[in-house]
């Protein structure tokens, strides 16, 4: 039931972190907007004063589409070149925000955007290292998977009398080999939590502990992942149904669909936060960190999680960043009380402030 509990806690945490969702959404919208704006310009430049695009409003028109790509495809290609930069930016942003998001999920209090950025910055380089390790592992899995599937295909192709057996084998194999890829992503998620929650500095150790946590809590960890996957697939299906029913055939329906699309994106991003909240919650539950911390906005808490030897180490979050001189002043002005509940498990919750990020 740990999985369910974690999903519940993750849900609550994600609801409390809707502002984070909004920030991430807005930043991504900004990047996507830049690319889409270039796309729009490419369309407008290509089509000029022609009315040919009218045929694309009510329905898809292949002739118009094909002529446009053939005659003005270069403009669209240039936009797709920017697309790569957009993806890189999104990846960089998500890496940057990784620590901030987990810290925010760990707090029941609202965190200002400035604080969020500070928290994010304090963990950034560890998140980068984690991304590199995760990338290497994922790349390795992809390489091995592709090689295995390739060998399978070549072997079957030479002798098969029916594509059915090939399709089932390769399809099944792909699904099967997708599991290690998914696992690799999950491990990265748990490692991120450990880096932030336990102020883990040794990234490989965090990665390893992330993996052992998943295998020791196999059903709970996969339950969280599956629930997230099912939720996203359901969301996609719902979108496709709405898109089919509503269409984008006039100004009115376009307006409606834009709202639907943006709600969809918002929900996708929220689901990701929910997933991360659930991962954090599961880590807290299974690794004995059950602290509920109520701290002032400017305070940073970093719960410790027992290391593999079961020792509770005192966390000195170099990263957390934490309160700057300005914040100290602000806190002094606000004189808000700091409330902490320590977990029964003698875990030391170190809420440390540092005047400068480490």
């Amino acid at each position, binding site marked *: 039931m740990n999985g369910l509990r974690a999903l519940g806690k993750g849900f609550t945490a994600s609801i409390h972190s809707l502002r984070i969702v909004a920030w991430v959404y807005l930043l991504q919208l900004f990047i996507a907007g830049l690319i889409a704006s270039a796309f729009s310009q490419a369309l407008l430049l290509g089509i000029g004063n022609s009315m040919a695009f009218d045929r694309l409003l009510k329905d898809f028109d292949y002739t118009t589409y094909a002529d446009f790509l053939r005659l003005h495809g270069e403009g669209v290609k240039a936009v797709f070149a920017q697309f790569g930069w957009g993806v890189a930016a999104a990846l960089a942003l998500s890496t940057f925000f990784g620590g901030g998001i987990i810290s925010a999920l760990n707090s029941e209090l609202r965190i200002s955007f400035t604080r969020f950025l500070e928290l994010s910055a304090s963990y950034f380089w560890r998140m980068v290292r984690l991304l590199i390790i995760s990338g290497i592992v994922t790349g390795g899995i992809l390489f091995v998977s592709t090689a295995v599937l390739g060998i399978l295909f070549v072997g079957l192709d030479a002798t098969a*009398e029916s594509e059915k057996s090939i399709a089932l084998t390769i399809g099944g194999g792909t699904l099967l080999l997708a599991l290690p890829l998914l696992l690799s992503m999950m491990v990265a998620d748990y490692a991120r939590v450990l880096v932030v929650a336990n102020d883990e500095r040794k990234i490989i150790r965090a990665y390893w502990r992330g993996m052992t946590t998943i295998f020791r809590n196999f059903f709970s960890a996969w339950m969280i992942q599956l629930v997230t996957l099912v939720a996203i697939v359901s969301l996609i299906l719902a979108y496709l149904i709405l898109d089919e029913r509503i269409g984008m055939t006039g100004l009115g329906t376009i307006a409606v669909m834009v709202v639907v699309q943006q709600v969809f994106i918002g929900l996708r991003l929220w689901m990701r936060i929910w997933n991360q909240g659930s991962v954090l919650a599961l880590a807290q539950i299974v690794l004995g960190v059950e602290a509920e911390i109520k701290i002032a906005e400017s305070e940073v808490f970093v719960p410790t999680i027992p290391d593999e030897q079961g020792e509770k180490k005192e966390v000195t979050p170099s990263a957390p960043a934490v309160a700057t001189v300005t914040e100290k002043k602000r806190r002094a002005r606000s004189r808000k009380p700091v409330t902490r509940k320590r977990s029964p498990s003698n875990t030391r919750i170190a809420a440390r402030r540092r005047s400068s990020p480490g």
Partner: protein
Amino acid sequence: MRLRITTLSLLVSAGLCSSQTVIFPEPLSPRIANYTIDVALDAVKKTLKGTETLVWKNTSTDKVSELQFHLYLNAFKNSQSTFMKESGGESRGVSAADGGWGWIDVTSIYVRDGEDLSSKMEFIHPDDDNANDQTVFRVPLSKPVPPGQTITLDIAFDAKLPKIFARTGFAGNYFLVGQWFPKVGVYEPAGTRYATTGQWNTHQFHSTTEFYADFGVYDVRMTVPKNFVLGATGTLQSRVEHANGTATHLYYAEDVHDFCWTASPNYKVVEDQWRHVKIRLLIQPDRVQSQAHRYIKSVKGTLEYFDHWMGKYPYPNVTIVDPQYGGFGSGGMEYPTLITGGSLWNLPEGFRATEGVTEHEFGHQYFYGMLASNEFEEAWMDEGFNQYAEGRIMDSLYGAKTATLDLLGFKVGDLEFSRDGYVGMKNPKLAPSFNKAWEYKAGGYGNFTYTKTAVWMTTLERIIGRPTMDEIMRTYFERWKFKHPCAKDFIAIVNEVVIARHGEKFGSDMNWYFEQVLYGTNTCDYEISSIAVVPVRSPKGVFDREGKKVESAAEPRASKPQEQESRITISRLGEVQLPVDILVKFDDGSEERSDWDGKDRYKILKFTKNSKAVWAKVDPEFKIVMDVNRLNNSRSFDADRTPVWKYTLKFLFWVQNVLATASAF
């Protein structure tokens, strides 16, 4: 109606005694090349051993002193054949497999009750100087065949089938046996097609060529392992099992010009009926559930369409072969009364490859099967006409916007697909449609013969009207079925029918059209170059009135203060000149339609009205399908940007999704 009577006609007169079911009481064709073949398949060694009796009739007024034969299988004999050199070992998306070579040897050839011609056989290379090519041979005759007489030859041959490549061969236990027997060429008497004197027309097998043969009667016995399901051109007459584990299937066909057969132990047989036509589908077991009904629906729809459009399909049956995995190189091919399709297990319904290939190959029963043009020299007449037919039929059966693809909102019609094949070429001016198939050295054979022809045929149809076009096609079929038509024969019919229906509306003939689209390489592109609207003003300046100089101010006409002059400039950017319509819309909702012969480089249309032109379109009904740029066919003062918004927002959404996915890592 099929009659069970004993054949007493040509075959008896030729000395052959056969007791097959006569299909046509009256021959439909001249029955020039008639074969009786007995062949055995060694399914393990992938070889054929056969004997063939050819009864060939000299329908010319010449004494024919030599015979020429095709040995198509030798195209796959080695890398030095003309076919392999041209194709680089690749054809129809399949690579020639090492060790999968195929060949055919004529082990003996005799004139019935006469001389042994075996030692006189000589390979010839009428199309190139490739001495290594063994796809055509000639044999001189000591006694020439007199006009109107027949010659009977007894031929023995051994053949090794290639691994499936370029239509024919084997894949495991799947066999598609096409172009497999020594086949006599076509002797064209003076007046046939372009022949000014009697001559053999026997081309080598090229990577881009198909076939050309005379009609005749085929009586073929095929011996294969008895667990094999067999299908072939013609109708099954008998099946006899032997003690050695084989079975002999006897197939008989009349008024056809080729014979193909297939055998495999894996086939499932699905049978159906359309009017007088028995449909037999030989399909791979895994595909029965998801694809069989698609094959059947497509072939029935095509039969129905052709029956109404062109004329009756006279044969009693059609066999559809669904190639096995690994045998796709034999898919999408036509033979008389037998076609090969192309499908995949659980291929989505929206991807209409099964239907499209079936329709196309069945269409060849008309354009090739009965209208037996020379596929070597005028591939546009079978492939192009058939592609045009495919566009009409597929779009009619499966929707003009969805006949080729209808998946996840992406839709492509068949004609749209053809047009894109032609206008989407890097250089659509590279070659004409009228060209020998092996002379597309720089590529583009498929586009210039299939899709360009389909596009200009559709353009012709839309210029002269569908009823006129239908009459042309019906006349063409009626006049030329079971013969060898060529370009000039078709053009003559077009001229005849267009003049009969439209007088000289399009000129004294339509040759101008074919000069441009069939024999020419130019492209067509009309454009609305500009729209300008200026208020109509009174004349200004100094005028002589009643002996006095009067100066007039530049004021709008008092009587018609709102009059505007709208000037529309239409340009011809391409070299092809076609008549076009122009439609202009005004801001009071009215429309004006004009026509233009499209010959000058540009035309300016002027409209003086109380309203302003808001948009103009050249070729508003999209008659000129061969116009290579549809985007410039319209122009508006205030183009609606809603579609741009639609696609920008869709794009934004998908970019956001990609970014959201990237953030998950």
